[in-house]
């Protein structure tokens, strides 16, 4: 009886945040959680995107404001912070986009083997990071 109670007490129960941070995730799991994180980032940064769209496209005057935000800052926000926010935006978009394409590809082709899941997840991580570095270097004027 005592053993039975002990066995019940040892059941893991609901997953906690502590569990989530201690699990060793496979690449597909990393892509999965990054899909959620990048999606939330895009949601939070949505007003920033609309602001960029508004300033860049509305008029020549607003276009100059858009350019100046990246060159000299806007209001109390220095240009570096504007560029940093844009870099986060670029990474979140690319990560979400690449992982989304993987999702659609898996759905359409039914390629649901363990191997392909791992390889495609690794490809998503590599492609989105490489593209982020390329766009980021351009953003910070490295080329």
């Amino acid at each position, binding site marked *: 009886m005592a053993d039975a109670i002990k066995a019940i007490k040892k059941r893991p129960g609901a997953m906690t945040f502590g569990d989530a941070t201690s699990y060793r995730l496979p690449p597909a799991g990393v892509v999965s959680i990054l899909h959620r994180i990048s999606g939330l980032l*895009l*949601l939070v940064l*949505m*007003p920033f995107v*609309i602001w960029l769209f508004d300033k860049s*496209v*509305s008029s020549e005057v607003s276009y100059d404001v858009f350019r100046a935000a990246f060159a000299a800052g806007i209001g109390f926000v220095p240009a570096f912070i504007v560029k940093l926010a844009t870099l986060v935006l670029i990474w979140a978009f690319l990560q979400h986009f690449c992982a*989304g394409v993987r999702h659609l590809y898996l759905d359409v082709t039914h390629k649901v083997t363990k191997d392909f899941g791992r390889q495609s997840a690794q490809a998503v991580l590599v492609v989105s990071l490489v593209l982020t570095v390329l766009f980021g270097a351009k953003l910070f004027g490295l080329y």
Partner: protein
Amino acid sequence: MAINYGSKRIVVGAHYGLRDWLAQRVTAVLMALFTVAIIVQVLLPGELDYYRWAGIFAHQWMKVLTFVTIAAILWHAWVGVRDVLMDYVQNVGARLVLQVAAIVWLVACAGWALQVLWSL
């Protein structure tokens, strides 16, 4: 009307799971198409100044595609954030507050984006 009695009666499921799953993919494809349309036009030869950038959004088909994309983002983001909140926020009251906040946030963003789009 579909038969929903006897052996054909559906006793489980509201089926919004399938609808949301499909909506998530359809809206994703629409947003991907918009992304490709932007990238192709930006990469066309010539200096990318204000006139070329604004010119991209001057075409009627581009305005329509942008409008559809804004609607797609609204729907896609709602399905996504609802899934995340259902998974991580177990307190019903807190979840309701956050879900309402997400809806207000999304509708406000969509309204602002449409205001910008329609004043072009």
